[in-house]
């Protein structure tokens, strides 16, 4: 009975192969209809004409992008100039997000290293400690930061109590407050991927370098950093990308002069003063920048693998 010797499973495997399509269809449909189609529609909206009361007219127009990049006189009779208003907001967002990323890296790398060199039995607990704040509502965390940094908040009171300062430091509503907020919001994102990379690092490499009389910091710079670079790049992107489009930190910790992309987009969809095509265009520009950063990361990652 040779035919019986082949088991059912050898012929059909676990039997899922034939069902791939129906099993994947729900996720494709839900994400396709409620995320891909909306983003495509948003792209279309960015090329439509704005109605005077915050609505839209289905007519092709480049007004939204024109408003973003070009400054024209009030009556359109002056020579067009580059419009710095919105470019400045983008530049400030990139700058803020970049600084927050750097700050996260300076604190996050040593933390990740410290955790990865603990006793393996305790590492999961350390990682857990880093993860918990991430799962706490971002709004509540940002509100907590606002409470802490207020002019008469606990932070200022403490500094005054120990006599470091005489009058409260003005932190809230400044660029610094937004910085701190972004740093605090996304710090766990920096620690986790670097931790994953350092945990796989072969410490014999450090040992070999030390035996050849390299100092500890030389080892860190020349051997460790290049080896764990993919983890560092991943961490930087996980902090930079959400910081770039952040809304809560600039809105709750910043003031009128700390305007960022997120607030600019939000404003275009509030009430009758809004401008949907312009808001869509700004969102499109943000999305393009984010996708460019992600593509760059994929390229770096594939190059490292080779």
């Amino acid at each position, binding site marked *: 009975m040779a035919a019986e010797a082949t*088991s*059912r*499973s050898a012929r*059909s*495997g*676990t*039997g*899922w*192969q034939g*069902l*791939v399509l129906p*099993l*994947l269809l*729900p*996720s*494709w449909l*839900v*994400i396709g209809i*409620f*995320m891909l*189609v909306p983003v495509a*529609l*948003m792209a279309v909206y960015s090329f439509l004409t704005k109605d005077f009361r915050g609505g839209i007219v289905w007519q092709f127009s480049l007004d939204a992008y024109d408003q973003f990049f070009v400054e024209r006189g009030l009556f359109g009779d002056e020579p067009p100039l580059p419009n710095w208003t919105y470019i400045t907001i983008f530049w400030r967002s990139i700058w803020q997000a970049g600084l927050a990323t750097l700050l996260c890296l300076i*604190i*996050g790398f040593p*933390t990740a*290293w*410290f955790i990865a*060199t603990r006793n393996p039995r305790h590492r*999961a607990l350390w990682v*857990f400690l*880093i*993860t*918990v704040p991430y*799962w706490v*509502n*971002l*709004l*509540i965390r940002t*509100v907590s930061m606002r*409470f802490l940094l207020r002019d008469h908040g*606990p932070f200022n009171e403490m500094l005054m109590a120990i006599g470091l300062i005489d009058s409260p430091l003005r932190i809230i509503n400044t660029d610094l407050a937004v910085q701190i907020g972004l*740093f*605090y919001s996304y710090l*766990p994102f920096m*620690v986790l991927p670097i931790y994953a990379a350092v945990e796989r690092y072969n*410490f014999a490499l*450090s040992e070999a370098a*030390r035996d050849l009389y390299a100092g*500890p910091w030389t*080892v860190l710079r020349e051997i460790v950093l290049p080896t764990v670079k993919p983890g560092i790049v991943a961490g930087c992107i996980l902090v930079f990308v959400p910081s*770039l*489009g952040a*809304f809560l930190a600039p809105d709750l910790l910043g003031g009128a002069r700390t305007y960022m992309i997120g607030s600019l*987009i939000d404003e275009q*969809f509030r009430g009758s003063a809004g401008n949907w095509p312009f*808001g*869509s265009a700004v969102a499109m520009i*943000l*999305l393009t920048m984010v996708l460019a950063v992600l593509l760059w990361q994929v390229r770096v990652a594939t190059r490292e693998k080779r």
Partner: protein
Amino acid sequence: MAARTDIRRYMGFGALTALCLTVLYVPLIVVAVYSFNASRSITAWGGFSTHWYVDVFVGPEAPIFRAAAWNSISIAFLASTAATVIAVAAAVAMVRGGRFRGRQTSFAIISLPLMVPEIVIAVATLIFFTTIGVRTGYGTILIAHITFCIPFAYLPISARLQGIEDTYELAARDLYATRWQAFRLILLPLMMPGVISGWLLAFIISLDDFIITNFVKGAGMETLPTAIFGSVKQGIKPNIMAISTLMLAVSVIFVTLSYLINRIGQKAR
């Protein structure tokens, strides 16, 4: 022979780790402590009291918070359950489906909600519902939440599934179990820690969402985060700190549960 110096130790790294944890936890601890402040003023400490917790449940703003809490919890429950079912199906196909065309694309689609900035998703979803003429409200929030919860449910489930060898299922199939029986009686129980973990994380993600909800909620509809945001805009009041502390506790409990379930699952394997 002992090593001259420990190659794993760098001066100051321990101190920076302490700084990292301080930054992460101090704001939360401060708010939790001040939520027990008896004083009306949020600045001065007036002794210990649970007054503001009572206020949350029976105070003048209690009906608003109760309605918002009900919306938040029911949406989180429905959205995380739907997202988990979708994610289980997708994970089985991705992990057990062998090599098939479009595997890379499918993975990209599933992780899309993680890559597109939240504010962009919010804008796009609002435009979509407005264009097809659906009134924004409970239903639109629910649909948006199901969509962005899928990857959060998917990741722990597929991670768990990758660690389960297919021999158990093959044995069941050899013993003439149908595909459905092999799934329900063998694979699903083995996947359970990942499924629960994914559900809990999706629940927390839905409960926490502010930006997308704020765009698609429509007038007069509030969830806890949007109600808190609206209130905070007029200044941080003590009852808001009490609510925040309660939500903080819920998050911590859920994440701890998810962590413990995953650990038990790993030990059992």
